[in-house]
C-alpha cells in the first residue's frame, strides 16, 4: 500500500537530516521574459489564470462533509460496522473531446483506442477514418484530389478510345482501323495529356504503382497475399437525392452539396465494429471492361455486373455508410432500403466523378 521510499522516510531513526531548514532550497524564479509573455495574450487578457492560493475551510465546508459524518457515526456508535458503505476513491473517467462524440471511457487505453480508431487520420472531406497516415494520404489523393480524378477519367476515356484504335507503341495506343496512326498528333496528345495517375500499392515499403485500381488490387492479392475480399476501394456511388438530403439533415456533416451526392469510399477504410446492416447497391460506372470486384465486402455490397456495351444498370438506392464521427451507439437507420436483387431503371452514367448529374 505504502511505497517503500515513504516507509523508509518515515521510519528513519536519524532525525537530524530531516529538518526542513537543513534541506537545500532550489532557486526560485523564472528566466526574464519567459514567464509573463506567454501568460498574457496580445490584448493583455489572461488565458491561464491559476495562482497559488492557501485555502481556509470553515467547519461547514462541503470538503469536510465525509469526515464530519464519520465523526458523528462514531459518536453515535455506528462506526464499528466492518463493512463500509462509505464512498471509495474512484478512478476518473476519460472523455473524448471531439465535439459531437463525447464518449466516456473508464481507462485511458480504451479512450486512446477509440481516438486512434475514429478520430485520427480522418479525411476532412468525407470524414472517413483511415488506419494510418499513409493510407490517409493515398485516400485523399485518389478520392479528393481533383487533378487525380481528372487524369484518371481522362485515362479511362483515352483507354476506351484506345481499345478501338491501333496500338501506339509508346503507350500501347491502338490506332483506329479507319485512321492512320498519326504519331505526331498522338505524341502531342501525350504532352497535352499528362501521364496518368498512379495507384500506389497499399503495402508500406512496396512502392509499386499501377495504372488502374484493378491492377493494384491484383498486385496486392497476388504479390502481397491479401485476401480477395479485403476492403478494397470501392467505386463511388451515386445517391438518391432524397437520401442525400436526409443524411445532411440528420448528420449535419459537411457532405458535398450537389444534386446527386456521391460518397466516396476510402482505401482500406475503417468501418465500425458493428456489422454493416444496411445494404446498398453500387453502380459500376467505370466503362472499363470487366467486373468490379464482386468479392469485396460481400456483406455490404452487391455489384451489378455490367457489360459496357449496354448501358449499365443503375441503381439508385444507396444506404450511407457509417459516418465515423457519429457515436457508435447512435447508428442511424434509414428507412429506405433496397434488397439485393432488385434494380431500378436504367441509365447511363456520364461525367466526372464527384459531380454526378441528376439521375
Amino acid at each position: 500500500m505504502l511505497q517503500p521510499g515513504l516507509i523508509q522516510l518515515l521510519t528513519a531513526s536519524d532525525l537530524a537530516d530531516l529538518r526542513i531548514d537543513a534541506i537545500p532550497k532550489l532557486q526560485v524564479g523564472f528566466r526574464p521574459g519567459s514567464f509573463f509573455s506567454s501568460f498574457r495574450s496580445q490584448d493583455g487578457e489572461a488565458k491561464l489564470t491559476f495562482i497559488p492560493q492557501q485555502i481556509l475551510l470553515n467547519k461547514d465546508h462541503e470538503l469536510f462533509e465525509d469526515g464530519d459524518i464519520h465523526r458523528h457515526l462514531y459518536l453515535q456508535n455506528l462506526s464499528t460496522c466492518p463493512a463500509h458503505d462509505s464512498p471509495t476513491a474512484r478512478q476518473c473517467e476519460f472523455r473524448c473531446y471531439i465535439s459531437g462524440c463525447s464518449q466516456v471511457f473508464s481507462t485511458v487505453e480504451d479512450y486512446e483506442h477509440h481516438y486512434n480508431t475514429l478520430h485520427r487520420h480522418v479525411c476532412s472531406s468525407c470524414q472517413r477514418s483511415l488506419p494510418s497516415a499513409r493510407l490517409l494520404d493515398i485516400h485523399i489523393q485518389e478520392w479528393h484530389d481533383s487533378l487525380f480524378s481528372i487524369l484518371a477519367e481522362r485515362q479511362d476515356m483515352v483507354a476506351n478510345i484506345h481499345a478501338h484504335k491501333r496500338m501506339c507503341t509508346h503507350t500501347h495506343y491502338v490506332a483506329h482501323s479507319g485512321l492512320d496512326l498519326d504519331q505526331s498528333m498522338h505524341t502531342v496528345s501525350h504532352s497535352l495529356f499528362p501521364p496518368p495517375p498512379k495507384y500506389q500499392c497499399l503495402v508500406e515499403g512496396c512502392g509499386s504503382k499501377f495504372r488502374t485500381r484493378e491492377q493494384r488490387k491484383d498486385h496486392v492479392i497476388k504479390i502481397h497475399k491479401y485476401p480477395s475480399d479485403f476492403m478494397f476501394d470501392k467505386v463511388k456511388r451515386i445517391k438518391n437525392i432524397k437520401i442525400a438530403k436526409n443524411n445532411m439533415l440528420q448528420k449535419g456533416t459537411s457532405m458535398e452539396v450537389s444534386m446527386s451526392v456521391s460518397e466516396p469510399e476510402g482505401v482500406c477504410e475503417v468501418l465500425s465494429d458493428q456489422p454493416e446492416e444496411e445494404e446498398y447497391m453500387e453502380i459500376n460506372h467505370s466503362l472499363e471492361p470487366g467486373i468490379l470486384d464482386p468479392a469485396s465486402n460481400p456483406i455490404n455490397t452487391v455489384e451489378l455486373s455490367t457489360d459496357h456495351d449496354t448501358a449499365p444498370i443503375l441503381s439508385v438506392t444507396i444506404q450511407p455508410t457509417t459516418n465515423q464521427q457519429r457515436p457508435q451507439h447512435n447508428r442511424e437507420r434509414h428507412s429506405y432500403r433496397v434488397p439485393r436483387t432488385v434494380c431500378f431503371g436504367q441509365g447511363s452514367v456520364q461525367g466526372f466523378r464527384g459531380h454526378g448529374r441528376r439521375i
Partner: protein
Amino acid sequence: MWRLNAVRHKAGRQGSDLEEFKFKRREHEKELRRARKDSQLVSKRLLLNDDEEEDGTMDTLASDQVVELFNIVRHGRDLVKKEADLRALRKALRSPSAHLILIKQPNSIAILVTNLCGPNPQCRLEAARCLHELSHSPHSEVDSLRLRQATPYLITFLSGQSPKFTELCLYTLGNMCPDSENVRDMLLAQGIIPALNNCIQIHRTNLAVVEAVGFTLSQLISANYVTERIIPAVLASGLIPRLLSVLTPDSQFGLGPVIECAWCLHYLACSNVDNGALVAQGTLLHCTSLLVTLGVAVAKGSIEEGIELLIWPLLRCVGNLLLSGPLGALQPQLNDSRLLAALCAFPQAFLQTHPALARESVWVLNNLTAAADSSVFCSALFYLNLVPALIQLLPFSHGINIMVLRVLGNIAHQGREYCLHLAQAGLLPALCATLKMADTEVVTFSLEVLGQLMASDPQLAEEFVKQSGLPVLEAIQYSNQETIRLRATHLLEHHLLPHCPVDTSASQ
C-alpha cells in the same frame, strides 16, 4: 474499540443482525448528511451503566407505573430506600416514552435536582443518571430548557473529585449544549468554561473524564453562532495547553480522549477567531508532531482501528492554522520534514477506505506550498522524492486529483528549477492522461499546470511533444467547453507550434 462499549448512542442499543445494522447505518448516514446540509448535525452520547451490561431488554412500563415510581421517589423519606427507588426510576427512563410521562409530572426536574444535591452520594449518582437519560431524549419536548434547573449544579459538580459522577455530569451537559443558543448562553453565564478547565486539570489522569471533557467542549464550540463569545472565552481560558497536553505522542490515554481534544482544536481553528493565539500556545507544533507520529505508525503498518478519527481533525487544524500568518514565521513549528512524508503517506494508506481524508491531506500540502514563502517546502518535496507519490494520485476523482494539481501548480509557480524537477519526476506523461479526463475542472487545472511548465522552459514543450501530447491538445480544441478550448489553443499557439515544423493537421 476503546471505550465504545461504555459510551453508546441509543441507536446502537438494539442488537440486530448485521444486514439490518448495515441498513440502519446507511439510513442513518443519509440522515446525518441531510442534517449537515441544514447545519443541524448534532449527536448526543449516552453513558451506559455497569448494571445495564447484563440487562439486554428494556421493559417499557405503562405510564401509570412510571408515575407511580416517580411518586415513590417524590414522597419517600427513607434515604436508603430512596436510592433503590431512584434506580428503579432510572431504569424506567431507558424507555423514551417514560420521558414524556415524567416531565409532565409537576416539579419532576426539581425533585431530581434535589436528589442530585442531596446528602447521599448514591442518590446523587442515580439522580444524575436520570437527568442524563433525559438529556439524551429523542423527544423534542424534553429539551434543555426543561432541564435548565439542573445546569448550575451540574457545572458546579465538575470541580468535584468523583470521576464517575463527574463523567455523568459532563455528558449530560454535553448533550445539552447543541440544543439552542439560549442554552449555550446560559451555560456560558453559569461558568461552564472555567469549570471545564478545572475539571480537566483535576482529572487529568483519568482517561474517561478527559474524554468526557473533550466531548462536552466539542459540543459547545461546534454549534452554530459561537464565534462571538464562546470561542474567545475558550481561547482565553487556559484550556488550550491542557488540551494539547493530551495530544502528546506517547500519551497513555488511548485514542478516545485524544480524539475528542483534537476535534476541539479543529473547531477552534476553523472558526478563525484568533488562530495566532492558538499557534502561540503551541497548537501547530503539537498537531504536526502527532501527525508525524501517526504517519510513522501508518508506515509501519500499525493502523489502529479508528485512527482516521484522530487524523482527520489534526489535518484540519493544521491546514487552517497554516493561514494564521506568514509561513516563514510558522516554520519553526513545521521544521520536521517528516510532516511532508506523512501528508503523502496518508492518501496512499486511506485512499480506498476514506478518500475524503486523502483529499484533506493533500489540501494541507496545498496550504504548505501556496504561500509566498513556500519555496522551502516545495524544495523539500523534491529532496525527499515525494512528488511521484503525489503524481500517482492523479487518476483519482473525489476532488483528489484537483487538489493534487493545485499542489503541483503551486510548485511549478516557484520557478524554472521547480518546473524542471517536476518534469523529471514524470509529470508530463501524467498530464497527458489527466488532459483526457472527463471532468472539465481536471482538464482546466492540467492545462494550467502544463502551461506553467512550458512557459518556464522551452525544452519542456519539446518533451511534451515527444510524449505525444499535441494530439491531446488538439482534441481539446474541439470540445464544447470554452474554458478548456481557449487554454488549449493558447498553449498550442504560444508554446507548441513554434516548436513543431511537422504538419500536425493530419491527426485531425
